[in-house]
């Protein structure tokens, strides 16, 4: 119990943080909020077409780490970052990297469903519109339909595309947000506790969806539910007080964790 609250000096991540075909690679990443260090020296690969789950107790920095992957932390003034994050071997914190195309390639789904107060159609069409992805109205219609189908929402909303997206149920709103994200055709999707505000049935639907999306996209998901991590991910990364303690195939993490802190967490001794 005592050891769990202490910072480990010179910790080297246990397990296999690297991947054979990395899509996103974090190298020695430190994140600071003002003077306070939130992430300590994290090195982690996210492989192409895999789902990686980031787990850990509250305040361990998993959400912060996720948000560094598409530079969402840029919107916070006091946040600063050291180290490198490579997307296809290119540092996204490089001097002439623009966040606009970066975020089109690395999309994000948030904890609370946050559809725009616009129609369902306009919600999905927003991304393609601002990036100029569709040349014609017909093409845009197709993109919207395809994205909603991928998100498993098409059959539920095809008759009311022009009614407000905020009028949908919580689970539908979250799938709408996923549809909105994949309408831009990103390469990586970051999900920050996407099911924490949803009921079990809606959660099951989203989890199914994540499994389907893996064929085309690389997904990093932060979750508080260990069952969810076990169900949807191939690899699991355990964060503790801003440090990446252990990364291993999901099955191994939940059956035979290597690090004592991981074991303590998954057996429910703290968290």
């Amino acid at each position, binding site marked *: 119990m005592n050891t769990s609250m202490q910072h480990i000096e010179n910790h080297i991540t246990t397990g296999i943080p690297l991947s054979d075909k990395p899509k996103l690679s974090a190298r020695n990443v430190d994140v600071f909020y003002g003077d306070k260090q939130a992430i300590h020296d994290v090195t982690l690969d996210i492989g192409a077409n895999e789902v990686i789950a980031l787990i850990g107790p509250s305040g361990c920095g998993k959400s912060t780490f996720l948000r560094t992957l598409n530079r969402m932390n840029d919107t916070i003034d006091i946040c600063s970052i050291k180290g490198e994050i490579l997307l296809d071997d290119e540092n996204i914190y490089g001097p002439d990297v623009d966040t606009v195309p970066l975020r089109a390639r690395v999309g994000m789904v948030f904890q609370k469903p*946050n559809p*725009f*107060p616009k129609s369902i159609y306009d919600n999905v069409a*927003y991304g393609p519109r*601002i990036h100029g992805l569709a040349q014609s109205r017909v093409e845009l219609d197709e993109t919207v339909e395809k994205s909603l189908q991928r998100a498993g929402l098409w059959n539920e909303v095809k008759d009311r595309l022009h009614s407000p997206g905020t009028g949908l149920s919580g689970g539908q709103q979250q799938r709408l947000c996923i549809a909105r994200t994949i309408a831009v055709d990103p390469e990586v999707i970051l999900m920050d506790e996407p099911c924490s505000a949803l009921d079990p049935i809606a959660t099951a639907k989203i989890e199914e969806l994540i499994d389907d999306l893996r064929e085309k996209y690389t997904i990093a998901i932060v979750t508080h539910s260990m069952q969810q991590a076990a169900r949807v991910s191939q690899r699991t990364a355990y964060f503790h007080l801003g440090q990446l303690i252990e990364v291993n195939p999901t099955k191994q993490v939940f059956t035979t964790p290597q690090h004592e802190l991981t074991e303590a967490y998954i057996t429910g001794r703290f968290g």
Partner: protein
Amino acid sequence: MTDIKKNDSHEKKSNTSTESNTMTTTQLTTREKVELSLGRRRAAETRFRLYGMASVFFGMLCLVVLFTDIASKGTGAFKQTSLTTEIVLDSDYLNLNKESTIDEIRFANFDGLIKRHFAKMLKPKGRSAKRELFKLISPGASWQLQELLLANPDAIDTSVSIELLMDDDVDQWFKHDRELAEGHMNDRLSDQQLVWLNSWIEEGKLDTHFNTLFFTNGDSREPELAGIHGAIKGTLLTLMVTLILSFPIGVAAAIYLEEFAPRNRMTEIVEININNLAAVPSIIFGLLGMAIFINIFGVSRSTPLLGGLVLTLMTLPTIIISARAAIKSVPPSIREAAYGLGASKNQVVFHHVLPLAMPGMLTGTILGMAQALGETAPLLMIGMVAFVVDVPGFINDPSTVLPVQIFLWSDSPERAFLERTSGAILVLLSFLVVMNTTAVILRRRLERRW
């Protein structure tokens, strides 16, 4: 205290003997404590509700008293006394014919014609009686005849029936003092004048009509000819200038400060000063306008343009503060969603933040405009207090505004001007009610839920 509790618990225990002794004691004391405090809490609640109701009632009462007072004094202004009479438009006397030009009609002696008409009709004896008779008729009467002839030149040499405007003293007497006992009669009218007036009343010639002149005329020294058209036009032009300048500037400033400005000392100073400006007495803005707009930039005084510039200075802080509050109230999740899709800062602001903040901004703007509508002090400083008879055509014509017109009239000694003061206040208040209602409706309409 403890004794009583014990007694109590014993009584209860005899009723429900199954429970253990200690349990019952603790349970009852807790419940008793809660019940004791409950009485206190309920009493406080009731007291507070009464205070609240009393203050709401007091506020409503003040409002009702104010409105009934103004309305009872002001409604008279919407009616004007006039005398129905048949008058022959004598071509020889006026020196006009059917082919007369507009200028000839303008310079014809209608005044003399009216005097001759009444002198013939009532045959006053001596110069002073004549003067008393002519005093009953408003100087506007000759202007009425002139207008009639201008509109229809063929009426020359015919007998026309016309409602001639009466003087303000007659108007006030007819509307308010007629029923009073002899001793309390309005002493602005002589006995001879009252005899004439009473004979007209008996013949049914003297009556009140809706006072259209009040809405179509500019200011005048004669109360029966004074109207608010000039002031309303001046107000609209001034507010137009204010709106055109303050809304875009205010919203742009708010967006910049809220979304783009770097968080540093400079921004902080600007923010503090904007908040301070909102609390600056409005007359200071008038001084500022005089010093800068008139003395440095040479804007001509007494114009809606200048008034609008000064009121812009005054309204800007209100608009900026309300616009910033509206921007702040846009949920961060919407921004995050847009940023997460790769929207640029500009796109986030103009596609999402601005539409969501617009109802709040518009409400703030309309309230700021309502404040500007009622503003008098700064306009006094820049010469809009001048006596302007003409209705302003555009923003560079000398004019006055409604509240200043009210201020001017309230200073006049004539009783009829007092009535017009209240009448103009009623018009101003209805403008304010319309603007505030618009603000409420706009907010309801545009508000979107998320």
